């Protein structure tokens, strides 16, 4: 990864410098100076991890935190560089630092970094691990929606996409959820995320097809059934919607947030005018 850019850091600006490095690598045109007002805290002379994640989302990239294992970090490095938090000081007297790991050389057991004012810093894996472990083995990636981490981590990835969606909206998140569904077709939250994003984006028929897959897979998935009923109603399939909300109701009799949503959906369906031929063939064609 010699093509990874390098921004030598100015005083205390390792956060903006490291983040700009990985963002530029993932196709965002940005300089560290433009990130300073988004991540730097003058009163602390440094930047926080969570603000690096937030700034990544502001740049239209998904901020994914790598599983805190060396194996996972090395796997990610085969695809793209990662920002890491290091403690270059002592546990009791920390010197926190963000750097970018661009590679791992198994032959020499060395880690290659862009760090501070050093364009190419080579650190023994053992020494790197010590500094990384003191930072609780924190590493993050900036992913273009549609790109997936190398690690098999659907839970972590889908949560990262959901956080991205909150800021950037459903249309931007759809390619990311779609990629997750393709790679992890059996993961419930990935598909639910895709279905919800499609629904919010106004693609109701596509959303209904995905909710239907979830409901067929787990007849007790009250969330999927509720959202399926809502989608069916929006498509004008009132009878199917009513039947589906009954199933949701039976699947989730306990009071609480889900139950409240089910009741609200039921009221919506009952309030909508009954039309002739309100049954749709949709529920019979499962993808």
């Amino acid at each position: 990864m010699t093509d990874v850019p390098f921004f030598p850091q100015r005083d205390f600006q390792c956060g903006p410098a490291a983040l700009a490095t990985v963002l530029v690598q993932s196709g965002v045109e940005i300089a560290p100076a433009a990130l300073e007002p988004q991540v730097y805290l003058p009163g602390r002379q440094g930047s926080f991890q969570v603000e690096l994640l937030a700034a990544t989302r502001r740049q239209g990239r998904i901020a994914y935190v790598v599983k805190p294992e060396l194996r996972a970090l090395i796997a990610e490095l085969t695809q793209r560089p990662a920002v890491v938090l290091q403690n270059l000081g002592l546990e009791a007297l920390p010197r926190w630092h963000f750097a970018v790991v661009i590679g791992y050389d198994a032959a020499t057991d060395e880690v290659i970094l862009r760090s501070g004012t050093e364009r190419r810093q080579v650190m023994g894996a053992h020494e790197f691990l010590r500094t990384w472990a003191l930072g609780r083995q924190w590493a993050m990636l900036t992913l273009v929606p549609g790109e997936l981490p190398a690690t098999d981590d659907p839970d972590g990835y889908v949560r990262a996409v959901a956080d991205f969606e909150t800021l950037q909206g459903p249309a931007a998140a759809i390619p990311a959820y779609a990629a997750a569904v393709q790679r992890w077709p059996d993961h419930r939250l990935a598909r639910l995320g895709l279905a919800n994003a499609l629904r919010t984006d106004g693609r109701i028929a596509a959303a209904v097809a995905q909710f239907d897959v979830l409901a067929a897979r787990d007849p007790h998935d009250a969330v999927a059934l509720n959202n399926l009923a809502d989608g069916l109603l929006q498509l004008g399939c009132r009878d199917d919607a009513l039947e589906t909300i009954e199933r949701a109701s039976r699947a989730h009799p306990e009071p609480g947030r889900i139950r409240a949503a089910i009741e609200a959906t039921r009221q919506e369906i009952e309030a909508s005018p009954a039309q002739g031929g309100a049954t749709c063939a949709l529920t019979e064609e499962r993808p």
Partner: protein
Amino acid sequence: MSLRPFLRTLSAVLIVSLLNLGMLQTAGAAAIDTQAAIALEDRAAVTARIDERLAREDVRQAMQSLGVDPEQARERVAALTDAEVLQLDGKLAQLPAAGDGGWILLVIVLGVLIYLFASGKLSYR
């Protein structure tokens, strides 16, 4: 200062009642969104949610007091997730802020100690 816990409780109560109000009024959107579905899976997120709006305001003010421009502080807080806000709330002074500047403090401390030893104002005994 003693007013603060009271205000916090009051706000929590107000937020809860607003949420309930919202529940009754959301006739147009009865679907359960992805963040809510995730919160249902991660139990901790649900219980933490109540303080969230107040926490955002706290973090925004703390950022400003640490030298962030008011407009930028607003944008920065808006980009944080609920969970991230709760991680920062009340901890902006303690959380690791990576800036690679820790050595400066150490150098100053050592410098002062060396000076004190050298000038005889401090000794082992």
